[in-house]
């Protein structure tokens, strides 16, 4: 369902640009916010607000990776794997995420909690390795930070047990749970 308010915002955008079709991209963002991803309803609403065909709008929506073609998980995790993060060990983080979440890059967990992706350079090479969680940066990531975050999310999303995680990953070896360990770097979420 696209609210009337959202449709009005789309029409306002179409009027704001010198040419209405320029509003496709911001209107798609509005539709995605309402629907969770780019549904047929979303395409229809954008097409109607701007005065284009649904196919035309879809041709734009499918070009850009930030318009989701499938429902994303509650936490969308994007780990950068470009050159600077590569040089700083991002591949180890990717494998660690795979183990902890039980999904491969590009997949969404069966419970709908997580979508895990690798992504191209996120313009944060000075604090590599980096990732984004629901579009917000987490910088200077370490395996410990990954563990602490996954534990935190599992609690938040109400996941009872982390069946995919070997016991060795759940503890720092000193009898403390990883999530009690203060991460060294600032985590902005």
């Amino acid at each position, binding site marked *: 369902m696209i609210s009337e308010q959202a449709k009005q915002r789309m029409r306002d955008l179409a009027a704001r640009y010198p040419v209405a079709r320029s509003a496709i991209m911001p209107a798609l963002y509005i539709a995605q916010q309402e629907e969770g991803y780019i549904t047929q309803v979303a395409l229809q609403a954008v097409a109607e607000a701007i005065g284009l065909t649904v196919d035309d709008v879809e041709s734009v929506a499918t070009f850009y990776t930030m318009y989701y073609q499938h429902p994303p998980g509650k936490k969308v995790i994007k780990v950068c794997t470009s050159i600077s993060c590569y040089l700083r060990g991002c591949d180890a983080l990717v494998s660690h995420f795979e183990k902890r979440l039980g999904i491969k890059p590009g997949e969404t967990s069966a419970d709908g909690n997580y979508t895990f992706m690798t992504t191209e*350079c996120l313009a944060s090479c000075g604090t590599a390795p980096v990732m984004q969680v629901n579009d917000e940066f987490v910088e200077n990531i370490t395996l410990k930070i990954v563990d602490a975050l996954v534990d935190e999310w599992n609690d938040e999303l109400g996941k009872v047990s982390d069946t995919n995680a070997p016991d060795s990953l759940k503890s720092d070896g000193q009898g403390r749970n990883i999530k009690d360990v203060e991460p060294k770097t600032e985590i902005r979420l």
Partner: protein
Amino acid sequence: MPELIVTKDIDAPGLDTLDGYRQHGGYEALTRAIKEYQPDELVELVKKSGLRGRGGAGFPTGMKWSFLAKNDKTRYLCCNADESEPGTFKDRMIMEKSPHQLVEGAIIASYACNVSTAFLYVRGELALAGRQVERAIEEAYAAGYIGKNILGSDFSLDVILHRGAGAYICGEESALMESLEGRRGYPRLKPPFPAVIGLYGGPTVINNCETLATLPAVIRNGAEWYASFGTEKSTGTRIFCLSGHVKKPGNYELPLGTPIRTLIYDEQYGGGILDDKQLKAIIPGGSSTFILGADKVDTPLDFESIAAAGSMLGSGGVVVMHEDTCIVDAVLRMSEFYRDESCGKCTPCREGTYWLTEILHRIEHGDGKESDIDLLMDICDNISGKSFCPLGDAATSSITSSIKLFREEYLYHVREGRCMVSGGAALVAS
């Protein structure tokens, strides 16, 4: 520490607000530009300052402005803040910490170019940067810096923030305009250049975020002052984004002409190579530029010297690799980027970047043949200069330069089926 220009107050608390920005001289330059200069005089001033584009190509900014077609069509300004070149993270910092500086620069450029609608195209992934710039635009409207009759003059301007949605290609200026017009980001054939037929068919100036953010300081302090920094042909300072195997990665603003060695080893900047290992290779201007060997570490970071050393200053993204880096694997990683980001419009780039990646993959994983190395060079030759935009060319830079510099390493992979070094990816952030 040398005098800073663009990042002078970047860590000042509250700089991201209108009041905070004004406390550090914000919008003084705009006031002077509008009250003391005719638009043409500003174009001359920027020409005299020697300021060159900070996006990648390094084209003189004032000259770019003067190329705008003189006709009765509506002119547009686009700020390219679609920062996505691997190794580059300066524009994001400017937008997050000092968004008004970009907005002020965009208004000054619009005034100089007789533009009445300006677009700030901010990369979609940079959510915080987008929010910061959006708020700065709103504050500038409320303060009368944007809108009708700015500061009591005849100059009126509308500024629109446009968020990208995940496509590296939209950093290419003609693809950026396509995207702004609500289409897939496919590059246009040039000529005509944007200065003649650009956005919505009007003469269009497209400037990088850092370029625009430099303008207020140039206006405040004068062209001669700005040109007194840097070298004769590469004036001023620029933000170098230092990343990879250095102790202190980060953004460092330095006068153009500063040797690479200073940036990497000086305690004020990079602080040396991680674990005090040996330097192996340097990418001087983002992953689209040719790799330089360690012997080039004394090259001054200015457009001419880096070109003479066999590469380009590009976006200012300096990526450092130490002795443990497997060059084939690192190049494969960069090749994957271009394969994924090729828009698919031109066959040489779409198919070429795919095959480059496939071949690098089999060499890296011990399935390569000796002839693959020449095959890579041949494919690079068949991509370069044969597509609408430079993305395909960019994909070949690291490959051709690494084969020239490290051919032995490629041969070792082919003959022994493994790497001769321990591999950069072994570095684990535990």
